[in-house]
């Protein structure tokens, strides 16, 4: 089930909210857990039991860690992490590593399994790992009840696409929270913004991107390459940040405060800053559970660069079981490393820095989106060397129309341009005003209209 689907909007959300509103508070966690399991099972009718297994394993491990000290405590932690990584590794990376071994050896001696990736596994296994590590470190007590732990792992607003929530940030809210009409109102507003970002901007740009990336690379000229790259840069931002907005908004409607996951990342002045604004919860997770335990920047310059390399390698690998994702991660890591010397300069020349960072991120997204690394590199070549690839390409109308152009302009304005240039007085007056409420109503109607239109499937005459 996805937030922008009819079944979530018209059935799941009203029913779950309504039931949560009328039942006694002490049953709320149970209700939300059941709802979350139904939410997950809707898309994964059998793999929901895998998630239940992850929940049970980590709850037991958490209890065992909490009940022991010293080496035994450490052993249980290792067992838990190994279990979580093994599950993630099997479902997400078994095929990748098997292919890699075969490629290194030069023949197909290892069977390459074809395993469908369970939805959200990268998110809930990381949440499980953060839970048992936090219990080990004493940052939080083990969950008093299984239902608390289960709800933390499976809570439907953040289950499929994050943010990656740490148990210590939400445990108190699981045990005790209040739903007020203000939270519901603000949460629904946030949800609508996220829905509009996904449906009205990301999906529209996605049509343009899919068309351009379906062409053979030999047909792509400079103009088409730039349009495709920019369209994807905004598609992925509005898709991901839109989903996070919906998650945060939904959490708020049920009384939870989920931390922000995006902070206008395309206004970043450096790649280093970018990773503090983009998918904040993932960057925070890697920093806390990989970078710092490896020593961070406390063990000298060389070790710091090695640690950064590892983190960005893993960040890329986390995004997908393919070398193109790893390369994308290392691409970001490379710029992050070379910026270390120049952060002061970047901070001084803000506009130039923002443009620099945007271009680097843009190129990175080309590597991320392309079918393979070579195609991505050839694509970038077409962007930066137009003289080598004259206008031999496809007419613009083949992949772009007035709607795409309009949405693209809105996307650019919404990436932070309006935030920078609109005076604080106006934005404060706008926030939570009746005008903004009407604007949100319009966005909601347009989003629902777009979703409904995707269900329209006519035939030229009645088939018999």
């Amino acid at each position, binding site marked *: 089930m996805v937030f922008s689907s009819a079944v979530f909007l018209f059935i799941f959300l009203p029913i779950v909210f309504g039931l949560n509103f009328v039942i006694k508070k002490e049953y709320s966690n149970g209700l939300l857990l059941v709802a979350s399991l139904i939410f997950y099972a809707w898309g994964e*009718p059998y793999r929901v039991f895998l998630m239940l297994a992850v929940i049970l394993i980590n709850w037991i491990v958490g209890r065992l860690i909490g009940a022991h000290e010293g080496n035994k405590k450490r052993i249980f932690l290792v067992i838990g992490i190994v279990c979580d990584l093994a599950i993630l590794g099997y479902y997400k990376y078994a095929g990748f590593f098997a292919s890699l071994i075969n490629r290194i050896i030069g023949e197909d001696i290892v069977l390459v399994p074809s395993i469908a990736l369970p939805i959200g596994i990268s998110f809930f296994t990381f949440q499980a790992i953060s839970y048992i590590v936090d219990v080990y470190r004493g940052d939080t007590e083990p969950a008093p009840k299984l239902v608390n732990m289960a709800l933390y792992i499976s809570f439907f607003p953040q289950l499929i696409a994050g943010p990656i929530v740490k148990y210590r940030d939400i445990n108190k809210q699981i045990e005790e929270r209040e739903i007020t009409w203000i939270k519901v109102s603000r949460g629904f507003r946030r949800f609508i913004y996220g829905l509009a970002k996904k449906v009205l901007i990301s999906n529209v740009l996605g049509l343009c991107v899919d068309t351009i990336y379906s062409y053979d690379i030999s047909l792509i000229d400079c103009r088409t390459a730039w349009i495709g790259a920019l369209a994807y840069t905004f598609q992925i931002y509005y898709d991901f940040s839109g989903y996070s907005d919906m998650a945060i908004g939904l959490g708020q409607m049920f009384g939870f405060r989920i931390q922000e996951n995006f902070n206008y990342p395309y206004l970043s002045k450096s790649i280093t800053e970018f990773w503090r604004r983009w998918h904040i919860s993932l960057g925070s997770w890697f920093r806390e559970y990989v970078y710092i335990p490896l020593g961070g920047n406390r063990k000298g310059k060389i070790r710091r660069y090695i640690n950064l390399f590892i983190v960005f390698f893993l960040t890329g690998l986390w995004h997908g079981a393919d070398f193109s994702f790893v390369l994308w991660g290392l691409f970001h890591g490379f710029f992050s490393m070379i910026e270390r010397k120049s952060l002061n300069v970047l901070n001084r020349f803000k506009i130039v820095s923002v443009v620099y960072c945007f271009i680097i991120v843009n190129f990175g997204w080309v590597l991320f989106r392309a079918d393979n690394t070579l195609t991505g590199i050839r694509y970038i070549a077409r962007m930066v060397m137009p003289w080598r690839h004259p206008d031999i390409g496809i007419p613009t109308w083949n992949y772009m129309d007035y709607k795409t152009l309009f949405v693209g302009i809105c996307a650019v304005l919404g990436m932070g341009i309006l935030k920078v240039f609109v005076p604080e007085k106006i934005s404060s007056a706008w926030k939570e005003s009746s005008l903004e409420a009407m604007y949100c109503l319009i966005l909601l109607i347009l989003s629902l*209209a777009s979703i409904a239109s995707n269900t329209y499937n006519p035939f030229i005459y009645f088939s018999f």
Partner: protein
Amino acid sequence: MHSKIGNRIMLIIFIAFCFIWVMWFFVEPYVVTDNNENREKSARPSLAMSNYAEYPSQYEEYLNDTLPFREWFISLNNKIDFYIFKKSTSDSVILGKEDWLFLKDTLADYQRNNLYSEQELAQIAADVQTTQKYFEDQGIEFIIFIGPNKSSIYGENMPEKYEVNSGASRTEQVVDYLTRTTDVRIIYPEMELRQVKEEYPDLQLYFKLDTHWNYMGGYWGTKPLLRELGVELEDFAEIQYREINEPDFIWNGYDLANMLGLADALNQDINYELEGYSSADVTYYGNPRDNIDYFNGMFRVSSNAEDQRKVFLARDSFGQAMIPYLGASFKEVVSVHREGFKFSKTLVENENPNVFIYEMVERSGWDLINYISWPE
């Protein structure tokens, strides 16, 4: 106070959203929801162990067809795309100039980039001759009629961005080949219709919002066919006609407008009611204009026309606009949909016609021309 008003409004919007099914329950009886999609809507599935894994997708299919205010939302979205962004809301429909709509399936014919190879032409000719011999062995006249695509007649209203290759179209290629290499009788009134357009620029021969020709286009298109069969309709100067706003098939509406999801907004087009094209009295046994079963199946037309021949019209939807003129010209016309549930070799043999007309629209191709492939 100012900010609280906005929050209160948001809360009201949320509550109203949660009660959207309740609102729909009261509104639905007053909302006309025609099935413009030409398909059966999905039925509500039942959950059982046997369909546990498939149930979510089955339920979503059902829900997608029964959303509250669905048609209103679709209409809103498609009107925004159509009127503001000048964007086709269907992958199958091209927005032309002057509000003309075209079927995307005809684009290759229009651009003339789908010509047949020599081998393919030879195969078509062989298939045609096989069918021709089948009928002529029974003493039945055999004639092929090709209804031109709308873009073949009104191509000037296609968007400029679609380039047209020089040379013949695929249909012109086939007609030319068959004419040169066989003696099959084949009528493709493309030139005749273009001449009519030139001569009578105020006449609209095809619908703007539909793939078909209207009854005026049918009149002018049928004339060359009848001439080939030795029948002449009254001259156009003798005919009275008036404009009406009705599609060829009342149960289908304007098909291209339907495919855009804009049947409620794009509902004005030009058809004609013609009188005086024949003095014969005509009786219809079944009317496909307002009955889909007659369209998909068969119906008859009889008249007291001088020509005593019985005509079997194996047609598609383009045949509908020809019926009044064929029906008035022959003693009996049996009209059967070639891909319908009635058409078969046995039916043709049982009807024992004097003339067999294989009518096809230009875009449909030649896959079914060989009688051997017809149902028994």
